[in-house]
């Protein structure tokens, strides 16, 4: 998968491999993030070229394409797509992309145009060696239309990651740490509003209707006890939070929407998509 030479660069030293238990030896602090996304193995390879910056590629093999999607979207992505893999980003001379079960980050030690070209070539070679394309999390397809989501759609397979993106509660009210439970979180621009009015939409999927019912009940009891049957309440910051079961196996929550109608319509749109309708 990793090219031995490209754009005048040659591999320097042996490939290093890390598993979930020793990734922290390589990544300071953030190893927990990749473990949360289901890391199986990280492979690290370096390339050198006389008089040019060193290039390091980190190839993270996750347990699923969803995990690779999550690792890619863990960062705020403000750079330009590079057309590599399923989704990619160039940030200066560095490159990140995901494809199949793999999340790949390639970083030169210095920002130069030549290093950037070599990074791109290395990334292209790695992507070409990954056969599976991989799909984003199914729940991401239920979110309000892409034109209204801002920045990354986050994949949330654990409570620790939800805390990282949006602190909801000390307790795992939505059972995110349970088996076969995972969510997506996005910032959504109101139908009649600007990007700075964006609020969050969280969708969590469960293995069965019983799990959905328990989580929805716990969320209402723990976070929205004032919502009553409507599942909707105005919170202390004057904004609106609403929860709704969508289909048989998911819960959708609008968090801090600017109006009651906005919260209601966002959840309605998600429910329609889950039901196979076009909103």
């Amino acid at each position, binding site marked *: 998968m990793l090219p031995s030479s490209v754009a005048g660069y040659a591999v320097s030293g042996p490939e290093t491999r890390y598993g979930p238990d020793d990734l922290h030896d390589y990544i300071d602090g*953030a190893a927990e993030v990749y473990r949360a996304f289901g890391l199986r193995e990280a492979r690290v390879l370096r390339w050198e070229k006389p008089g040019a910056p060193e290039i390091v590629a980190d190839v993270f093999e996750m347990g699923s394409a969803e995990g690779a999607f999550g690792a890619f979207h863990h*960062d705020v992505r403000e750079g330009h797509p590079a057309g590599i893999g399923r989704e990619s980003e160039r940030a200066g001379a560095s490159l990140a992309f995901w494809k199949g079960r793999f999340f790949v980050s390639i970083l030169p030690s210095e920002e130069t145009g030549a290093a950037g070209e070599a990074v791109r070539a290395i990334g292209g070679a790695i992507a070409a060696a990954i056969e599976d394309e991989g799909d984003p999390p199914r729940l991401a397809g239920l979110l309000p239309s892409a034109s209204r989501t801002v920045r990354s759609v986050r994949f949330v397979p654990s409570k620790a990651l939800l*805390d990282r993106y949006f602190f909801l509660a000390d307790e795992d009210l939505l059972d995110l740490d349970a088996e076969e439970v995972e969510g997506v979180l996005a910032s959504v621009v109101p139908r009649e509003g600007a990007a700075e009015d964006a609020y969050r939409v969280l969708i969590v999927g469960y293995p069965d209707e019983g799990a959905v019912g328990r989580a929805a009940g*716990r969320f209402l009891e723990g976070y929205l006890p004032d919502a009553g049957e409507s599942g909707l309440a105005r919170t*202390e910051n004057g904004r609106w939070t609403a929860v709704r079961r969508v289909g048989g196996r998911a819960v959708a929550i609008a968090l801090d929407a600017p109006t009651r109608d906005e919260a209601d319509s966002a959840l309605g749109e998600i429910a329609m998509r889950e039901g196979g309708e076009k909103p």
Partner: protein
Amino acid sequence: MSGNGSGLTRRDFLRGAAVAAIGGAAAPRVLAEPGNEAKPQAPPSKSRVVLVRDADVLDGEGNARGPVLERMLDLGVAALAGKPAADAWKAWFSASDTVGIKTNVWRFLPTPPDLERAIRDRLVVAGVKAERIAVDDRGVRQNPVFREATALVNVRPMRTHHWSGVGSLLKNYIMFVEDPSAWHGDSCADLAGIWKLPAVAGKTRLNVLVLLTPLFHSVGPHDYSAKYTWPYRGLLVGRDPVAVDATGLRILEAKRRLHFGADEPFPVPPKHIRAAETKHALGVADPAKIELIKLGWEEGVMV
């Protein structure tokens, strides 16, 4: 509001009840002086923070020039103490002290070794025995000097951080706890709580926040891209770590506004700095309560 009767939710914070509900906020604490470590004192009206910048501190490759860095440190300490730097070190440290210099070894943006050496040298000149001084980061819990330390110097670069929003002076003490990940909840909001632990409580006599090439935005597995650093060429020096961090945070926020063209919140809100004042009463984060002295190079100062 608490889920199932225990634990906090975002709504508790929204209504501001958390500050009162959690309790445990320490009495305002002044930084320790030799001989009065245990004496509570009223906080000063303002916390003094000194920003020193020098256009010549970085060489052509972005490395720190040691002699310039030493001069900046001395200028900052003197302005902070209102007396010659050598006198300030002697006022803050004595021959009876055992001093840990808590540094930061993050490989992309470590504390400059020349700065570590400069601090060590000044401690020796102030009378601290060389063998009772140690510089450490990840080994502080095992380091015999740190285990016996009567005083600490806290020195690290400021950068964005994937768990706490920014890597700050407050954050730098996370290596004193057995399980750092236990402090990651809610964007590490309670990091100031670490400063109440016996290993560090009341021991910090000087804080130096390095802003030579700060990292103002994080991407990638290593949180680092050179694209998101800039040659600010500054040091922030203070006795109140919260005030120093709050000032450094203002500089990073200003840089993010410049870079992104609008207010661009940190992907992870650095709420631990504000909480260090409002919840833990460790120091002050409100700029109105901070006396900022600016020395040296003025171009692009941002605060």
